[in-house]
């Protein structure tokens, strides 16, 4: 869809939809807006930490039990473990001291993997980030091409494309991963099944993550393009003798891009969901696997550390989107 069809949501007072206060409020509003944004961001981080801390402690079974695992240890060792992680204190105390350390910039130490949270996440961030960026880029490029080529084309072409897209959405990523590995690694030997450092190791996992994103993005984009192609300015452009592809790329795409950017921004934030699964299949040492094991082991510091990271990414993306919108749609410029 294009912007003209969007409902006038923002005109309703007191309805900030995101962590973004009305940046357009004129005058001294600028500084205030930044402050407000900072405030809501901190609030968001704190709530996210609290929610995950709470959920993790709701799970049945004690932390020391999952730390000890299924081994019979002497009472002295158990007591030592309990004391070492402060598990004997009340939940409120544990929460309080955790928040206190967090405020001092200390993410704490993992219960399970004998590493500080900062280094555990830090050392794995690269692998996850490179996969996230690669798959996002791949999804955007393929979705753009697909949509531009198929929008308002022959019915069979659109049906085919949308059928393939639906298939893409309805196949779980782990299956895509296993099939890709079977064909391109085990049978053809084009890509390695492990060793995620190089570019060749990135290809298959990136494709596996990108499949469902591509499918969704291209549907949204094609829809937007088809609406844009109905607009009068398209007719004008055509009458000026512009090529069909030119019309699509120069005029229609710009109008169709806004919802895609929104969707893509949100997807990027949510990417860690796919990473949890794909890193498992491709044996990549990333944040997704880290958090999967941490949830199973009730490793609170790691889980909350990752939650902080994803919440920060969420905030960062929203800021970025605010910057990007006016670039895409000139009508959004010059008001802030």
């Amino acid at each position: 869809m294009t912007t003209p069809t969007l409902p006038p949501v923002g005109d309703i007072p007191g309805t900030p939809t995101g962590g973004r206060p009305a940046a357009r409020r004129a005058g001294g509003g600028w500084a205030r807006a930044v402050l407000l944004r900072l405030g809501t961001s901190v609030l968001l981080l704190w709530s996210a930490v609290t929610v995950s801390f709470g959920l993790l402690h709701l799970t049945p079974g004690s932390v020391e039990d999952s730390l000890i695992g299924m081994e019979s240890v002497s009472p002295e060792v158990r007591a030592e473990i309990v004391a070492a992680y402060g598990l004997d204190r009340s939940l409120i105390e544990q929460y309080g001291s955790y928040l206190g350390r967090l405020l001092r910039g200390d993410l704490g130490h993992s219960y399970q993997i004998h590493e500080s949270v900062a280094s555990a996440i830090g050392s794995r961030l690269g692998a996850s980030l490179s996969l996230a960026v690669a798959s996002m880029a791949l999804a955007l490029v393929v979705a753009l091409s697909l949509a531009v080529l198929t929008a308002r084309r022959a019915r069979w072409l659109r049906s085919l494309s949308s059928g393939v897209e639906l298939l893409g959405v309805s196949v779980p990523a782990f299956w895509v991963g296993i099939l890709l590995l079977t064909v391109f690694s085990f049978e053809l030997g084009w890509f390695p099944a492990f060793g995620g450092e190089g570019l060749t190791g990135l290809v298959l996992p990136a494709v596996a993550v990108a499949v469902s994103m591509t499918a969704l993005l291209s549907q949204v984009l094609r829809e937007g393009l088809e609406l844009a192609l109905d607009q009068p300015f398209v007719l004008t452009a055509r009458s000026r003798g512009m090529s069909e592809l030119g019309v699509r790329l120069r005029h229609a795409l710009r109008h169709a891009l806004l919802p895609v950017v929104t969707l893509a921004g949100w997807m990027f934030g949510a990417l860690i969901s796919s990473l949890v699964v794909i890193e498992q299949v491709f044996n990549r040492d990333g944040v997704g696997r880290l958090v999967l094991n941490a949830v199973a082991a009730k490793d609170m510091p790691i889980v909350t550390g990752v939650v902080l990271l994803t919440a920060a990414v969420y905030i960062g993306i929203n800021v970025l989107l605010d910057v990007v919108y006016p670039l895409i749609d000139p009508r959004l410029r010059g008001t802030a």
Partner: protein
Amino acid sequence: MRPGAAPPRPRGARRVRGTPGLWAACLFLGLIILAGIAPELLAPASPTETDVLRALRPPSAEHLLGTDANGRDVLSRIIHGARPSLLAGLGATALAVVGGTALGLLAALGGRVLDEIVMRLVDVVLSLPGMLLALLVLSVTGPGVGGTLLAIAAFSIPIYARLMRVQTMVIKRSEYVAAATSLGLGRPHIIVRHILPNAFAPLVVLATIGVGAALVAASSLSFLGFGPQPPDPEWGAMLSDGRDYFALAWWIAVFPGAAISLTVLSITVVGRRLQGRAEASAAPRPRGAGHAGLTAAPGPRSRSRHDERGGNRP
């Protein structure tokens, strides 16, 4: 994997017409629903009866879709799996739609403070990756169909809430609501008769994709070891279980996978048709409201645009 990432609906009456595809989709959905209600009527064999001597048999006249590692009939398991799978898919989506609608209405109509609180909560949930939230919920509830349902609903709710809120706000300011208000009609009446029906259409669209996404998410949870427990047949779990036997017995995984894909496809086809109808009939709705969600739902950003455009700010 989030249902919120829905594609936009085709607009208007363009696609409102019966096609062979639509009929096929209806037929397939009918079968699946029948399988969900009364699997005994359709299944040729018991879904749990095991026989190691006929394990891993390829599709044949006796076992149309082959047998699994336990010698169970794959077709029968798919048919019996319809109920837990639909429960996970439809149930999670229904729960998310209901919860999201309630929250969205609350935010849109409950005043500024409530709106702020609800939207902050929604932000918090959105900032947690869906799979992480699902894993946390599942480690509280324990694995199983119920837990899977809750886990998937948990991360879908905010998307519906956001969409519902935007829709409601648009409709709230529309002329016919104003007219209804001036006629002295009560708030509940306006909500039920005017706001809900009009705001609901885009939610339905989102939900059709949501069902499929929920089925896929359930499968991924099974893959991670948090899915429904044996011997319950559930499509996602069957698909996940089949991966180790893929080279030996492709049919164990491929057919449940096809069941998921066909269901998603059929629901989408039918959903589009419903959408077309809804749009055709919901005439008084402000133009474009049906699509608000697509930009508004995934991110919090839609607002800035509308701000800039000024709109009919009071």
